[in-house]
């Protein structure tokens, strides 16, 4: 079989695929697209981006794709243009965590395929490389997120003392989050525990009379846990008409916010601190 040339962007499935005894080219494409879609959804992409990226690659390989995007699964059917052959796969998304780095790499890969710049085998190699991208250094995330939350405190009118307290509370809470997630603890328990730790430390500003805005310190100390991206993704899915995914993402974010609030409340009760 022939591999597609640099300028051949209307290649058929068969032309894209290597000869492998027993393997149907369409089956290989189906498996690839299924894995691709699961990774893209798992890395926090919106449904509209997922559909467009997968459709663009399927068009380039001359096959038809129909996909159901479920909250934690991708149900995908790939068929040949004359519908004589088709494959259906259901793939679980897994819990990779949000990664815009992987999202960006996979989106770029879809255009490289669509523009005929890479062959199917090259696309598979690139896919393996992209999905092996390591996450950002935990120490750097800890530093940047703590600075971010301290800055957030300032934006809400907190003074320098409150910022310092929020920095420490965030660093401690986020470090605990990294430790607990590393040990595969339940996400809801992680959110409650981290909010509790950060709230207790954030209450330090009021306890030791540091600065004039202790209430802003304690209120801001847990905000690094707010699941902002799932909320934003859910709205994007709502506009795109993907109501099941939208509702699922919204509910997930609401549950995490409730866990955060429970941890905050427990922290304030422990410190015998009123909320107003």
């Amino acid at each position, binding site marked *: 079989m022939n591999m597609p040339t640099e300028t051949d962007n209307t290649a058929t499935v068969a032309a894209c695929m290597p000869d492998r005894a027993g393997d149907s080219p369409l089956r290989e494409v189906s498996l690839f697209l299924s894995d691709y879609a699961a990774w893209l959804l798992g890395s926090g992409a919106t449904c509209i981006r997922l559909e467009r990226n997968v459709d663009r690659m399927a068009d380039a390989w001359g096959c038809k794709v129909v996909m159901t995007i479920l909250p934690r699964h991708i149900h995908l059917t790939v068929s040949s243009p004359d519908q004589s052959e088709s494959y259906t796969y259901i793939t679980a998304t897994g819990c990779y965590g949000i990664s815009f780095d992987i999202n960006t790499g996979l989106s770029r890969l879809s255009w490289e395929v669509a523009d005929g710049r890479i062959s199917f085998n090259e696309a598979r190699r690139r896919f393996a490389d992209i999905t092996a991208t390591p996450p950002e250094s935990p120490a750097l995330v800890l530093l940047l997120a703590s600075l971010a939350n301290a800055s957030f405190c300032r934006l809400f009118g907190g003074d320098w003392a409150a910022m310092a307290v929020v920095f420490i509370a965030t660093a401690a809470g986020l470090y605990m989050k990294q430790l607990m997630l590393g040990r595969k603890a339940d996400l809801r328990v992680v959110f409650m525990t981290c909010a509790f730790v950060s709230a207790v430390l954030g209450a330090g500003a009021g306890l030791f009379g540091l600065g004039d805005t202790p209430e802003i310190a304690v209120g801001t100390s847990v905000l*690094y846990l707010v699941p902002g991206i799932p909320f934003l993704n859910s709205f994007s899915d709502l506009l795109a008409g993907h109501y099941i995914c939208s509702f699922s993402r919204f509910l997930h974010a609401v549950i995490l916010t409730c866990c955060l609030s429970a941890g905050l409340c427990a922290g304030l009760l422990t410190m015998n601190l009123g909320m107003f």
Partner: protein
Amino acid sequence: MLIEYLQDALFAAVAAIGFAAISNPPRRAYLFCALIAAIGHSTRFLMMHQQVFGLHIVLATTAASLLVGLLAVVLSPVAKMPAETCLFPSLLPMIPGIYAYKTFGGLVMCMYRGSEGEFSHYFYLFASNGLTCLFILIGMVTGATIPIFMLKRISFQATR
């Protein structure tokens, strides 16, 4: 006012970089997130300032989010990244965290305070902060997401 304005832009930029770090973006995204967040948040600051427009926080947030959304879409082909990579972290500094905290506080205090007067007071705090928080969130997500859908051609070809 100039110092306050610059401080607002600076702290919004630092906040955007930190919140971006949590979502594992490509390294070059930090610069774009910081730039967009600084412009967006400082624009909201100006719009809310009594000496400039004196707008309500909901309207100011909606307008600033629209600007953030437009900037993210326009800059995404330059950054060679999906618009969401720059947009979402840049938007997070505008999340109404203190309103959410006060809403939750009001709710908890409603349960703890028995007398009708105290309950009414805390229920008022819960409702007023909750509604403000809700409308800010609606304005934020609407303003920021609309440019992605209106400029689909740019938004979805940024990584080409």
